[in-house]
């Protein structure tokens, strides 16, 4: 009986592979266990405190670039959220800008205009072959050489460009602004139904309507109309130079702009290549067929080429979004207060909880990346072939 068991393990393929897999998992778990154990032992031996209680201690430092209020008396946990929001801000703005720029350049590279085509080519080859960190530092250095605060460049009234940032008026809503917002929401809903209705009419009567133009007029006109009817319920808080700095208004800091330019211009180069390959992947016959049907050039692009190209574009585009988000941690190089800079850097240094903080930061990036992947996968499914092929 016993002999039979051993024979089975050695000669039966299923039992054997089961044994090997169990062993592998066991060894892997053992190594992890040893590492954790050893780390805890070493920390203890060197008298380094550990634990997560520091999260509720006051941070003691200030963060200037922030979306929510933060003072030095707030906790490290709040510093974490300040950093997280800054990371998300740069990721979202960066992806948005990179996508627009990338699509534009990708399409230009396929144009027949020799000059535009080659400018786009040089741009792509230059930016994607130079480390993004250097590009970020380059843009930041250029921004630092803008005029100093006292010699600010005045763009229009109340818009100032300096090496401390781009200062502009901030809107302050007054009473009655709610009505304008409500009218905007109404206009958006109305335009949705209008679009549906016009599409239906097109299907039944064959007549085409300028849907986009009509809807944009609707969305712009209705809120503007209500804005004037309610007596212009927005006041502008203008930046005024007082003492050392501008007081009031809003400011976009050069650290943010440096990151935005660096990340989006770099990533756009990759996206443009993705877009180009996507468009090329649509067979020539499709274009020729749609032209033969009498479609204009821009309609060929919008109705025939792009929808098919998207199937090829979306998966690599997702990984570009992930790259951009992860590259946003380079903000540390120019003092952009993202997650790694504030919580992952200063808090780490002040509290010495390197392992705990790095674990939190890594898990956060993992979560952000997974969320982006999930949404992009959902979108990817929606553009894939539908039908019973």
């Amino acid at each position, binding site marked *: 009986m016993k002999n039979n068991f051993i024979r089975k393990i050695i000669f039966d393929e299923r039992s054997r592979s089961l044994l*090997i897999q169990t062993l592998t998992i066991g060894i892997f778990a053992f190594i992890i266990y040893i590492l954790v154990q050893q780390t805890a032992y070493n920390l203890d031996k060197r008298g380094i405190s550990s634990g997560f209680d520091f999260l509720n201690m006051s941070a003691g430092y200030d963060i200037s670039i922030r979306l929510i209020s933060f003072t*030095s008396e707030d906790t490290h946990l709040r510093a974490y959220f300040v950093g997280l929001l800054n990371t998300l801000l740069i990721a979202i703005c960066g992806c948005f800008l990179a996508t627009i720029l990338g699509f534009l350049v990708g399409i230009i590279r396929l144009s027949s205009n020799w000059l535009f085509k080659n400018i786009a080519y040089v741009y792509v080859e230059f930016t994607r072959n130079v480390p993004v960190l250097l590009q970020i530092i380059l843009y930041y250095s250029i921004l630092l*050489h803008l005029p*100093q*605060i006292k010699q600010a460049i005045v763009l229009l009234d109340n818009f100032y460009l300096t090496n401390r940032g781009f200062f502009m008026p901030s809107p302050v809503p007054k009473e009655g602004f709610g009505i304008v917002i409500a009218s905007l929401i109404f206009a958006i809903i109305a335009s949705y139904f209008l679009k549906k209705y016009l599409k239906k009419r097109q299907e039944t009567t064959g007549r085409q309507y300028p849907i986009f133009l009509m809807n944009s007029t609707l969305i712009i006109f209705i809120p503007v109309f209500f804005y004037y009817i309610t007596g212009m319920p927005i006041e502008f808080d203008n930046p005024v130079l007082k*003492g*050392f700095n501008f007081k009031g208004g809003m400011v976009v800091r050069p650290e943010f702009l440096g990151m935005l330019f660096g990340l989006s211009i770099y990533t756009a180069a990759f996206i443009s290549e993705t877009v180009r390959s996507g468009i090329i992947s649509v067979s020539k016959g499709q274009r020729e067929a749609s032209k033969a049907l009498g479609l204009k050039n821009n309609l060929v692009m919008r109705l025939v080429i792009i929808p098919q190209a998207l199937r090829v574009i979306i998966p690599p585009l997702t990984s570009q979004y992930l790259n951009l988000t992860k590259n946003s941690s380079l903000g540390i190089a120019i003092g952009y207060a993202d997650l790694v800079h504030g919580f992952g*850097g*200063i808090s780490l240094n002040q509290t*010495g909880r390197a392992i705990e903080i790095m674990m939190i930061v890594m898990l956060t990036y993992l979560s952000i990346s997974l969320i982006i992947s999930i949404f992009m996968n959902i979108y990817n499914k929606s553009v894939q072939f539908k039908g019973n092929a």
Partner: protein
Amino acid sequence: MTKIKSLLIALLLSLGVSTAIAGSHGSTLDVVKERGKLMCGSNTGLAGFGNPNDAGVWEGIDVDVCRAVAAAVFGDASKVEYVPTTSKVRFTVLQSGEIDVLSRNTTWTVSRDSDLGLDFVGVNYYDGQGFMVKSSLGVSSALDLDGASVCIQVGTTTEMNLADYFTFHGMSYESVPVETNSEADAAYLAGRCDVYTTDASGLWASRAGYPNPSEHVVLPEIISKEPLGPAVRHGDSQWADIVGWSLNAMIIGEELGITSANVDDMKGSANPEVKRLLGVDAGYGAMLGLSDDWAYNVLKQVGNYAESFERNVGMGSNIGIARGLNALYKDGGILYAPPFR
């Protein structure tokens, strides 16, 4: 079968690695001796404190502490490898054992001494946090700085003092975080910030390197105590003693009037403390685990505290800081080493 074999090898290897990690905790002195050189955590570049000169040789008052330790351990002050550290990574580098001593204008505080698992072993420069502005701004006091943009090195005590000071006086500011002293200089000179704040010594050192030093003023307010000194890992008292007493030997050397020039003559001194310090009376080196002439080597090769101070940051150097608090206790300062007996 080969699969099983390779698995077994992997298992053995992983066991070997973990025991290797566990076994790497000899005494620091033995590790240093075996390596043949001292690993010294220094500044990435702060004139007068820790900075490579034109020939690439590290110089400064903090660097001299490491050279003193090397002289005490090896009898050769040049057996040091410098590891430039930013203010942010310095403690991690020390904790992880990459360096043996951190001598990098680092402020001694209670949380660093306890919570971070470090031991500060002395003070080689009594400093305080100051503010530097362009004189064209017409600012004469730190209390006029409401609303200013302030360049600050991240991960420092100055960062927290700054927050405290402005909060306490009900003033607002924009913090412009930078990683290193040279980045701070660049941002300050470009006008990204109005004010550069760090230890006053650091401000003087930076100012000396600016194109027109007279266009910048260091404001009179000193808003904190910043005792700067060398730190070692917690838990190796012998090593802490060696580093601490290497520094003390330099201070006692000044007290006793022993310089690098006259140390050989002083060996013949009748003063019993001089005889103990220079190892003429044997036995004191062994207490620390060193040779008896360790302090002789320190004073011969590095010099006493006054020599180090004048050479690096004093009136004789291009930084030009007066001794002030850093004079000996008997000369009106607070520099005071425990007796050598």
